[in-house]
């Protein structure tokens, strides 16, 4: 007995230590970024490696400067617009499309179902140059809506795939019951599929939002006018500017990271599975 307890204790300690190490690795850069963004330039220059955070000396000037003098308010608006529209479109299209390939029988269904992921196999870097050339010639470059289109093309395959897998876990009898109870196909989707797919939809929304919010390559290539920049594009612009002040870049980075975090915490509870519990015999 005592030996077993000893082993259990050791495993417990190892587990906690492992977690702590992991958290440190993940959280440290973030912490440093936060701390640095709260300092003034002078402080950073004096003690660049200072990790302590003095609550009384928190200085939000960097945020003010980034937001109002470097145009980040505009970038935030742009990023929110691009991300939200991409999420809404992606979730809507993926719901309808994912439902179609799971439940409806039509010619070419199998092929469509498998080719969805095929599209995703093309790396973005391969596509960006041809797309750049194509859109330039068509005169569509430097448009924020174009960016939405590109993000949609990028996220939709995975979104479709995720939702398709999710829909496959839903018992078709629930839909049949709905159809007999008086639903049309669309009201089955609206009243039964969507409420039951909340975890799947939340994952798709989160995934799409992260891609659209963080994406840099296409934003960098396609956007020329600073007023149209998204956040990630803006940060790079800022970091590359002549007067490099670290606290500004850090503040900007915090603004890029924070929404993802908030989003994740908001949606996390919807990610739990098992919403269909109780539908079946059990």
């Amino acid at each position, binding site marked *: 007995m005592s030996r077993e307890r000893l082993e259990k204790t050791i495993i417990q300690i190892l587990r906690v230590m492992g977690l702590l190490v992991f958290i440190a690795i993940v959280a440290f850069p973030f912490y440093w970024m936060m701390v640095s963004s709260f300092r003034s330039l002078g402080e950073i220059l004096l003690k660049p490696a200072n990790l302590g955070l003095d609550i009384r000396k928190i200085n939000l000037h960097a945020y003010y400067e980034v937001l109002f003098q470097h145009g980040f308010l505009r970038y935030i608006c742009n990023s929110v617009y691009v991300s939200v529209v991409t999420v809404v479109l992606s979730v809507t299209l993926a719901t309808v499309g994912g439902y179609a390939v799971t439940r409806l029988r039509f010619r070419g269904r199998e092929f469509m179902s498998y080719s969805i992921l095929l599209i995703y196999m093309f790396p973005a870097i391969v596509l960006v140059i041809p797309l750049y050339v194509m859109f330039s010639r068509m005169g569509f470059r430097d448009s924020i809506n174009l960016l939405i289109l590109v993000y949609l093309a990028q996220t939709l395959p995975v979104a479709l795939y995720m939702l398709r897998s999710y829909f496959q876990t839903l018992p078709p009898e629930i839909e049949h019951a709905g159809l*007999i109870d008086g639903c049309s196909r669309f009201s089955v989707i609206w009243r039964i599929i969507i409420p039951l797919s909340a975890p799947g939809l939340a994952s798709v929304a989160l995934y799409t939002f992260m891609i659209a919010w963080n994406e840099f390559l296409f934003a960098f290539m396609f956007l020329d006018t600073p007023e149209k920049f998204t956040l990630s594009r803006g940060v790079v612009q800022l970091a590359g500017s002549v007067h490099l002040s670290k606290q500004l870049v850090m503040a900007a980075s915090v603004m890029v990271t924070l929404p993802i975090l908030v989003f994740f915490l908001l949606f996390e509870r919807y990610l739990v599975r098992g919403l269909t519990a109780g539908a079946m015999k059990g």
Partner: protein
Amino acid sequence: MASLTLKAITKRFGQILALHGVDLHVDHGEFCVLVGPSGCGKSTLLNIIAGLIQQDEGSVLIDGQSVDRLAPRERDVAMVFQNYALYPHMTVAQNLGFGLRMRDVPKQIIREQVLETARILGIEDLLDRKPRGLSGGQRQRVAMGRALVRRPRLFLLDEPLSNLDARLRASVRLELRHLHREIQSTIVYVTHDQVEAMTLGDKVVVMRRGKVHQIGWPETIYAHPADTFVATFIGSPEMNLYRGRLLHKDDRTHFQGAGFSLDIGGLQLNLGESELEVGIRPEDIAIGHGGTPALKAKIEMISDIGSEKYIHARLGQESMTIRAPREAAFQPGQVVPLTVDPDRVHIFHEGRRISWPAGSCSSSK
């Protein structure tokens, strides 16, 4: 309440012929049971009636009107699924009221009807709960209630009892019978359980491999099975079935099986001496003298199920099951004489029943 007619329903899934020209008529208020082994197409047929699956050929008529072009919601039928298929995100009350809500029934009326249905089924105290908090039996009731609340023209039940434990199943079966008598509705009920079929059905449809083998009252199907499949599928323990030939001798007919000969009286058939099959139900065999010449069987094993005994014996080279009262005192190894009433013997030629004794196929109810 409505009548249902199926005309030559055929359905293929790829290469597989799931239903093969099924014809059926169910009268107003009739309780019709589709029974057959799994994969016989009975559930497919139910889904076609509901409109969830489209048939390849044939036609479904409700009250004489074709419903082939109507969506499931327009057919005014209700269905209870084997796995209940409750809406997990709704309370019991919402589950029950959903069909009415989708049909734009005023809220007040929905409330009343949901309450009334819940009262009939004894689930009033569950109305605010979600399905995940219910037991199997309670879920089954909610599923029944969801069908009942709308008072549809036709009830379709797809093995609704198969997920309940044996005791609960027996009591719900009785309740179903009562319920049917009370609401007088037309029901099509699918099951693979012959006991359910025999006890519930006004009319029983025996199916196998997409074909209807026999349609009839339970007692007709039991007493006059149309072919060897129905004969062995309905009835427990199974009917004893033997292959052999008929021999005519001194105005009497004998069935010559593998290692035994059975006197079946004055049967005259124009089949010559072709091979046929003879079936005897376990309860139609009496242990004791009477037949001439007496059949003799050797008892091999006895299964005592409490209320009666099943005696497994060897007759010639064939095995035989005999139903005996529980007082019967036999020992394995014993050789006993058997008596079989010739009128209770079923004769099949090429699998189909031969009407015998003459005129016995008319049944009354």
